């Protein structure tokens, strides 16, 4: 029987999914789920619980917020605004702050939770990145998570723009500028988005729908998928004695992990409420209602959007060209679209990039120590550095006033640093990782220095080294260190140029970039030899009537803690 193309394609897709999700055996062992324990696995939970807070406080806010740009005159209790013309959106935000019971607290809870949500997402993502938790089979979940990050940005941006105060209006003005900078269709797009000339009267109702319906709906659905995939794949674990790609060492979901997570949820709720009750955030009554004509100094977005602001602030303005009557605003397009686009694409595609470079097909459930993946760690640090510089550039005016420096000098310094610092960060991080690996290797082969020098009977001096215990050894020996992939030569045996050679060569280059610099992990033979050598010393010392620590092999091997359980993957 011949299979059709369609059948083969669908079978391939099914296989792809099955290999990654194991749909077939999905629900099988749910009850006995074991979760590995590590504080950094709680970072995702901070994001989750902040999102719960966002939903709750957000529902409260929708009860009082009026998403309308109709102009009204303020009549409420805040004296400095008496009779001031403002949109209903702004007036209702003031009402929430000063008239609705608990309204100000809820507004502040919502905003602090949003800042923490984004902070937790970013830190969680860094954890996943630097430990290599995104490797097969979790690439899909990385993509889901990455989409959540983008949606989080969208939620933050749409929400920030709702109160229609000076800062949110400035943000929308920038958005308008970016939309208009799109070649050819820009001005039409701007009219489309704002329902006419900026600011129009449509944008706030539109953003409101996105902010309370579309974006949170998508986030909720994707968080569901995200967590489903976490349960399905089972959580990764840090390397350690007894932990392999074939098992999960940790606590059972019930009751230990549920208790920990439940307790943590209340810590997150409590901390957000505490911050909201004591620290003012987004005091729109100080900023005043938005008015498109004046521009105010010190207008900044929330921290998670600051990289875009910084990118725009750094770009020199001269790069705007008029070609045949059309304006090409590279001064806006490059900083607002190209730069973030590049950084985010690299981030989103990273698991696939890395899989392509290793050529590996196997599953990974034991995390990498960052030092054992020097190129990844270095690239991560480089990307973070680039973002950080953009964030700082977004606050260049504050840096100037608070550190008494010249705004112009700071801007120039950041322009240079944006290109230099990531490269430097890459180089130095990689060196540090390789250095740490080398030290691990030495440690495994020689043991801990004990600072005791012993003179043997025949006059030789040796330093006594304390061998590593089982756990320390496992951590330092048990990891894979891929080599650059080998490719077939350009021509086959008959001298004909091979078809996929060019693609292979690119792949080989990428692979070399990743893995050319490597420290060989200690092999079994090397370890055996080192141990024999240590045993020799040991014997000599024993002969001299001295005692020294026992070798790991002789130690008892019960390293798992009592409460911990182990299950198969």
């Amino acid at each position: 029987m011949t299979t059709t193309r369609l059948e083969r394609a669908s079978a391939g897709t099914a296989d792809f999914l099955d290999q990654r999700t194991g749909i077939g055996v999905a629900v099988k062992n749910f009850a006995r789920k074991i979760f590995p324990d590590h504080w950094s696995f709680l970072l995702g939970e901070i994001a989750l619980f902040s999102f719960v807070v966002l939903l709750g406080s957000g529902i409260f806010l929708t009860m009082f917020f009026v998403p309308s740009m109709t102009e009204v005159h303020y009549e409420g209790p805040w004296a400095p605004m008496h009779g001031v013309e403002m949109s209903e959106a702004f007036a209702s935000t003031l009402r929430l702050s000063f008239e609705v019971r608990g309204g100000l607290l809820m507004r502040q809870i919502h905003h602090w939770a949003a800042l923490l949500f984004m902070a937790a997402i970013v830190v969680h993502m860094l954890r996943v990145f630097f430990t290599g938790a995104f490797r097969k089979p979790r690439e899909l979940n990385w993509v889901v998570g990455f989409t959540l990050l983008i949606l989080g940005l969208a939620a933050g941006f749409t929400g920030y723009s709702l109160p229609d105060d000076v800062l949110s209006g400035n943000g929308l003005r920038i958005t308008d500028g970016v939309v208009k900078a799109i070649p050819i269709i820009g001005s039409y797009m701007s009219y489309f988005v704002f329902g006419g000339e900026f600011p129009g009267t449509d944008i706030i109702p539109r953003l409101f729908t996105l902010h309370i319906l579309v974006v949170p709906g998508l986030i909720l659905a994707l968080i569901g998928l995200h967590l489903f995939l976490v349960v399905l794949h089972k959580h990764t674990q840090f390397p350690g004695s007894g932990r392999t790609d074939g098992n999960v060492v940790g606590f059972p979901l019930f009751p230990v992990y549920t208790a920990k997570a439940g307790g943590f949820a209340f810590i997150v709720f409590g901390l957000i409420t505490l911050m909201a009750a004591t620290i003012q955030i987004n005091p729109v009554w100080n900023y005043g209602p938005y008015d498109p004509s004046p521009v105010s100094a010190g207008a900044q977005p929330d921290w998670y959007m600051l990289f875009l602001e910084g990118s725009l602030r750094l770009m020199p303005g001269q790069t705007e060209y008029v070609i045949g009557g059309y304006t090409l605003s590279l001064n806006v397009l490059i900083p607002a679209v190209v730069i973030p686009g590049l950084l985010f694409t690299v981030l989103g595609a990273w698991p696939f990039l890395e899989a392509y470079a290793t050529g590996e097909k196997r599953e990974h459930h034991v995390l990498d120590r960052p030092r054992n993946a020097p190129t990844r760690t270095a690239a991560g640090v480089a990307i973070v550095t680039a973002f950080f510089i953009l964030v700082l550039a977004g606050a260049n005016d504050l840096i100037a006033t608070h550190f008494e420096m010249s705004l112009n000098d700071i801007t120039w310094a950041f322009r240079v640093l944006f290109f230099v610092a990531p490269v430097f960060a890459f180089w130095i991080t990689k060196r540090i990782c390789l250095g740490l690996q080398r030290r691990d290797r030495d440690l495994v082969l020689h043991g801990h220095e004990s600072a005791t020098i012993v003179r043997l009977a025949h006059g030789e001096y040796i330093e006594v080294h304390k061998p590593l215990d089982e756990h320390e050894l496992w951590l330092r020996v048990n990891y894979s260190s891929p080599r650059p992939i080998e490719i077939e030569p350009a021509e086959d045996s008959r001298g004909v140029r091979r078809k996929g050679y060019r693609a292979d060569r690119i792949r080989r280059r990428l692979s070399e970039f990743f893995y050319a610099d490597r420290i060989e992990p200690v092999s079994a033979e090397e370890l055996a030899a080192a141990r024999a050598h240590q045993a020799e010393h040991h014997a000599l010392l024993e002969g001299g009537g001295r005692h020294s620590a026992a070798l790991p092999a002789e130690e008892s091997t019960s390293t798992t803690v009592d409460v911990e359980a182990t299950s198969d993957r």
Partner: protein
Amino acid sequence: MKAIAARRHHRQAPVVLLVLALLVMGGVYAAFATTSADATVVTQSDDDVEAGRKLFAANCASCHGLNAEGRQNAPSLVGVGAASVYFQVSTGRMPMQADAPQAEAKPPQFGEEATRQLAAYVASLGAGPAIPTEDQVDPAKGDPASGMALFRTNCSMCHAASGAGGALTQGKYAPSVLNTDPAAIYTAMATGPQSMPVFNDMTLTPEEKRDIIAFIDAQKEGAPGGLDLGQIGPVGEGMWAFIVGMGLLIACAVWIGAKSS
């Protein structure tokens, strides 16, 4: 804690001094006001001009010249008016010290009386804006809502919408106006120190100036939402979200993640 306390102390010191200076000023003024029908006339007396000349010769002449005619590195003060001297001296900018991009506000070196004497001397050299009366700068008599609108169109591009200040080019900056005393706000507008434009009575009438003072005064009515983090806006909030929020949460996570054994 010590460092924080020290810095806090440092930041608040000028404010405390200003408040004290205001109290002294209030007392002195009250004394004058009861003995004389028109206080402004008293401050213009020849005695004051003479005392001012002496103070000027001792403290200012090295830069501005013996007759305030100006030198190559300091401008002439003929015609800048009493308001300019009042602003420069009461905010501690003059006498200038460090060679900075702009004269820094410092704790004032002269008391209320000496400041008025200096102002009287400079005013005697040529006509210029006068020091406003108590009534002209009384925040209670202004309309903060109108002040907000005026502040936004005239001042917020440099001083930020909240009045917390902002950066200008080449190390210059527009300082926070939130802790400035009303007369200094008025005289700043009337004389336009350094990079700040002059807002004379044609651009902003005295009533409008008083509205602006009322708005700035309303801005410092305390933060209804809690600690104001120095009113620097979203950047400060973001830093707190990371340092306090994520810091504490991660500390808790580490504590929860730690094995009990």
